[in-house]
């Protein structure tokens, strides 16, 4: 049993960059960006939990403890909402930075350099904030237990952390630390991230825990936007991505694009580099030849049918997680669109010839053409179906010709 939540290495890491806390363009830029979102979430939850109606100073009479307060990025706005706030942090430098800033802004906040297991207080708190802290502590179970002891009965504890998913690895570690260099390399250790399930599985903590809505790995992967930080950068820094009113034009790219790109990559790899790919091509190109050479053509065909059903499921998942409703008619005509995109990309209808890159380009061309029909004045948008039909019929007519051209006259 450990009796400390302090991880010396983590403390040193943050002490080094402490003077940068309040620089919106500095090391803590992502936190500054994220701050309004989490404050709104915390505020909504607290108002709901304590049934507060006071709009002026909603947190009046609430005592709140901010654990791992850092430079006070969260403590100060909470204080402005009227709360009686206490901030503790294990780094002396962080506390000093926080004290100085609070003084400059004339805010009354009690800052202590301390950790929850050593913090002595005569009264407990209504709300405890453990925001982006559990991934930096030594013993999470112990930390949550000690924090809980500081909470009043019927109090509210927030625990926010980075979920340990592939996405968080790509964006928080690779993206933010290595590629964009927003954070010094090593700020976060992915294997210290905690999943919502691990957090709720901590027995003592269970009843206090309320996790942030962003902790939904499946929904996050299929729905919502990706590359938001890039689009933010394009908007704030590069001054692109601006619409005619000067607002941000697009917040990001639909997540389904990421799913599509990953899938295309996998298909490209399998089809052009692997044995399975050769079998697929030959089963389509010359069934009897494939059979004669020992390719299990029936298994190939069945597997491909299963795979296309799997792809249809992926499409359904992206649709459902994007709009939060299931529309059974959503897939209507999609099968024809898939054929059209493939033939535009150079796949021949009788099989055995085509590339994934071709299909990717075909899909983009078809998608753009489909959208374009909505902007042609005087005709209805669903006229793209005429285009769809024309593409498929001409592909069918040209098929034998193209095939002959590929295989030569011999």
């Amino acid at each position, binding site marked *: 049993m450990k009796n400390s939540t302090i991880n010396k290495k983590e403390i040193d890491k943050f002490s080094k960059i402490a003077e940068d806390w309040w620089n919106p363009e500095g090391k803590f830029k992502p936190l500054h960006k994220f701050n309004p979102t989490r404050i709104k979430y915390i505020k909504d939850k607290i108002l709901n939990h304590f049934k507060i109606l006071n709009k002026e100073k909603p947190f009046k009479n609430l005592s709140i403890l901010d654990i791992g307060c850092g430079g006070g990025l969260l403590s100060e706005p909470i204080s402005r909402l009227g709360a009686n706030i206490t901030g503790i942090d294990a780094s002396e430098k962080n506390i000093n930075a926080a004290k100085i800033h609070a003084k400059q802004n004339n805010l009354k906040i009690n800052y202590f350099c301390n950790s929850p297991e050593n913090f002595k207080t005569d009264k407990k708190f209504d709300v405890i904030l453990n925001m982006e802290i559990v991934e930096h502590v030594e013993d999470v179970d112990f930390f949550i237990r000690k924090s809980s002891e500081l909470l009043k009965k019927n109090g509210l504890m927030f625990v926010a952390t980075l979920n340990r998913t592939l996405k968080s690895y790509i964006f928080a570690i690779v993206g933010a630390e290595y590629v964009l260099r927003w954070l010094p390399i090593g700020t976060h250790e992915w294997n210290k991230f905690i999943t919502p399930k691990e957090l709720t599985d901590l027995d003592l903590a269970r009843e206090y825990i309320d996790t942030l809505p962003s902790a939904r790995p499946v929904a996050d992967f299929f729905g919502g936007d990706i590359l938001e930080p890039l689009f933010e950068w394009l908007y704030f820094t590069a001054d692109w991505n601006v619409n005619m009113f000067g607002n941000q034009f697009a917040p990001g790219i639909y997540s389904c694009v990421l799913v599509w790109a990953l899938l295309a990559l996998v298909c490209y790899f*399998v089809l052009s*580099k*692997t*044995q*399975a*790919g*050769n*079998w697929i*091509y*030959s089963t389509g*190109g*010359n069934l*009897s*030849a*494939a059979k*004669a*050479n*020992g*390719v299990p053509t029936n298994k190939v065909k069945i597997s491909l049918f299963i795979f296309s059903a799997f792809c249809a499921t992926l499409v359904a998942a992206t649709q459902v997680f994007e709009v939060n409703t299931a529309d059974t008619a959503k897939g209507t005509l999609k099968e024809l669109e898939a054929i059209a995109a493939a033939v535009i990309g150079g796949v021949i209808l009788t099989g*055995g*010839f085509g590339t994934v890159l071709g299909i990717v380009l075909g899909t983009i061309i078809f998608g753009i053409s489909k959208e374009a029909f909505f902007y042609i004045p005087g005709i209805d948008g669903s006229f793209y179906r005429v285009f769809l039909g024309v593409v498929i019929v001409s592909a069918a007519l040209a098929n034998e010709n193209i*095939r002959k051209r*590929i*295989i*030569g006259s*011999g």
Partner: protein
Amino acid sequence: MEEQKPLIEINNLVKRFGQFTALNGVSLKIYPGEVHALLGDNGAGKSTLIKVLSGVHHPSAGEIKIEGEKVNFLSPKDSSEAGIGTVYQDLALNPLTTVTRNFFLGREVIKGFRLFGLMDFKKMNQITTNEMAKIGIDIKNPNQPVGTMSGGQRQTLAIARAIYFGAKILILDEPTSALGQKQQMEVLKTIKKVQKLGNIAIILITHNEIHARLIADRFTFLSLGEVIGQGEAADLEGEDIKRLMAGGAEIGDLEKELAFQ
């Protein structure tokens, strides 16, 4: 030649399909390094014989011995594992993909896992080029689609593939039909090259007596499921071949019949 052991020996092979007898006691001996021409009219039983040898059909009676050992084929796979490589007329090629992909179709060289492991294209290209060169075709680019190759080159590809994957007995089903003159010659040259390798026995099924005379060491004539003539190339006269090709004794009968008209 007689002191040599036959690579494949067929004794009294019979194949019946219900009431119909397709092969009625056929016997053959084929030696390594030899081209054995199998001639006969349509319906003579050539195709049935090949299908029995390649394991598609099961013989009704008789035996097949490979290198002196009796074999019993239950499937085409058994036959090819025993060393019989059959090159059918359609060649079992996929014209839409590359020479290399066709050469290794179903038996790809892979690094890592089966099925989803990477194909070793460098090695496969090299083997393809080498094996094709051994029997006389220099392909410049093993990544060209088979569709761009001539009929003769395709035939060579199919033969090279069969040999590389262990065929000791090569059955060529009408390799020169459906080809232009020049390409026919190309294929005959290829067969000659395979013959010169010395360790492979070739069964050449053909309609074309001229081609057979050019490269075959030994002939067997089939008619209505029976062997009606057999011999070494040197012993057979051109007239004999023509007569036997046309169905043997029957042509004599017909001559007589026609004379009385």
